[in-house]
């Protein structure tokens, strides 16, 4: 198993779309035998977790260059459109 990665999953309120995305990402991690610590939060709380994060998945607008870790858009987990591509991206980041 890989070293544990911290994944931030954020949306505007931290209660709606991030809930859906968190569930799917945990499932992806389990299926790929990836060790993750998922933190579900509001976008405005992300800076507080930035030091220990390895990946940010968000359904909101985000300035990707602002962070030292990769940022992936989570909308495909809501609409299904482009889902395979983001799953591959997430697995790649978490396996690294």
């Amino acid at each position, binding site marked *: 198993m890989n070293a544990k990665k911290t994944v931030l999953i954020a949306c505007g309120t931290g209660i*709606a779309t991030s*809930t859906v995305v968190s569930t799917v990402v945990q499932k992806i991690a389990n299926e790929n035998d990836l060790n993750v610590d998922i933190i579900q939060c509001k976008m405005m709380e992300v800076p507080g977790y930035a030091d220990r994060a390895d990946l940010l998945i968000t359904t909101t607008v985000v300035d990707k260059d602002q962070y030292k870790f990769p940022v992936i858009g989570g909308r495909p987990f809501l*609409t*299904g459109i482009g889902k395979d591509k983001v799953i591959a991206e997430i697995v790649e980041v978490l396996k690294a």
Partner: protein
Amino acid sequence: MDSTIQQELVLLNVEATDKFDLLEQLACHLQKLGYVKDSYKDAVIAREKVFATGLPTVAGGVAIPHTDAEHVNEPAICFARLTKPVDFVIMGDDEETVSVDLVVMLAMKEPHAQIDLLQNLMGVFQDEDALTYLKTQNDKQNIVNFIKERVFNNSAE
């Protein structure tokens, strides 16, 4: 605590000039029925401006406006179908919009209690047949039954 859907929360043939007019109408409706507080309306409009909720799907655009739990009395979802689509900014996008004719306004309380509901709702948004049904069915009770079965699943019983 279970969320609610019933005929009074299903609105067909809604007419709105733009998304803000629509959000106001739906928020007022939820408020009148007691599901949300007075503050919900302004909060949901403010939030839509910062965190847009338009979603392009396999069968056209939908939107899921919602806001912080503190403005909600009792969880519910309000289903609204528009006679004429209005533009919503796409979730996660700066300015790109999607034409929306189906809106599900969420009055959400704590996250994990509604996880099944949210996941099921997204499942419906990924299902072309389900969306087509919701966009064409004209009997409110049929829509209520469909949402109960597909979105609330067994969690509401």
